[in-house]
C-alpha cells in the first residue's frame, strides 16, 4: 500500500467534527467514491472523531489517499493520548457505552468501513484506523 496524499488535522473542539467530516468527503469525492460509499465513510469518521473528543479530549486525525493493487481508497487515522480502553472487545460490542449513549460508534464504524483497526492501551491512548476503497461495498 502506498500513500498518495496526506493531511493531519488537530481535533480539539466540537466544530472540528464538521470540518473534518467535510475534509473526508472531499477526499472521497476526489477518488470518485460513490455517494453511498462517501456517506458510510463520513458517518464512520463522525463517530470516531466524536469519540476522540468525548473520551480523550481530542487528538489528531489523519486523512490519506492510499493505493493498493491499483485501487484507490481513503484511509483515516484517529489517534489520541486519552485514557485508553480497558476492554476493547467489550467496547466493540453493539450497545456498550460508558458515556450513556447508544454504544454504536465503534462497532458501527467497523461495519461502515472496508478495513478497521483499533489499538488501545490504558493510560497511553487509542488509535483507530479505517479504510474505504473506491469501489468497496
Amino acid at each position, binding site marked *: 500500500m502506498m500513500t498518495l496524499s496526506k493531511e493531519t488535522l488537530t481535533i480539539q473542539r*466540537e*466544530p472540528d*467534527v*464538521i470540518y473534518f*467530516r467535510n475534509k473526508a*468527503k472531499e477526499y472521497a469525492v476526489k477518488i470518485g467514491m460513490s*455517494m*453511498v460509499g*462517501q*456517506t*458510510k465513510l*463520513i*458517518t464512520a469518521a*463522525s*463517530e470516531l472523531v*466524536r469519540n476522540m473528543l468525548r473520551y480523550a479530549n481530542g487528538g489528531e486525525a489523519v486523512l490519506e489517499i492510499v493505493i493498493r493493487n491499483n485501487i484507490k481508497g481513503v484511509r483515516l487515522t484517529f489517534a489520541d493520548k486519552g485514557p485508553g480502553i480497558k476492554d476493547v472487545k467489550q467496547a466493540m460490542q*453493539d450497545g456498550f457505552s460508558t458515556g450513556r*449513549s*447508544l454504544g*454504536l*460508534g465503534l*462497532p*458501527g464504524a467497523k*461495519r*461502515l468501513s472496508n478495513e478497521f483497526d483499533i489499538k488501545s492501551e490504558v493510560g497511553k491512548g487509542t488509535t483507530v484506523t479505517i479504510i474505504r476503497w473506491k469501489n468497496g461495498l
Partner: protein
Amino acid sequence: MDKIPILKMGEFLLVTIQVDLYDRLALALENDLINMVSKTEARGVLIDISAVSIVDSFMGRILGNIASMSKIMDAETVVVGMQPAVAITLVELGLTLTGVHTALDVEKGMELLRNKIGYLPKEEEDLYDDII
C-alpha cells in the same frame, strides 16, 4: 445560524434542517421542539432532513428523543426526505429510529400524520419505513 426555526402549521410543527447540525445546535433543537409540542399541544412533528447528508448515532439519538418525548405528549414524529444513502448507512451503523415514522416528503408526511391522529382512519403502514 444559532437556532433552527420551528413552523407551526395547524396542529403540526414543521422543522426544516438546512445544514448538517453541530451538536449544540442539534441539542437546542431537541429542547425547543419538545417545549413547543408542550406549549402548542401539537399533535404531530415533521422534521425535514432532505438537506442533511449524514445522520450519525448522535443525531439519531436526538431524533429518537424528540419522538419519544413527543409521544408522551401525544404527538407523533415523522422524519421526511431522508436521502437514500443516509438510510442505507443508518442500517449498517445499526441504528433503529424507534418511534420515528418516515415519509418521502413533507406532503406525504402530513398525510401520514393525519392518518396517525385519526383524521382519515385508513392505512397504518408508514410510507417509507421498509427502507430503514
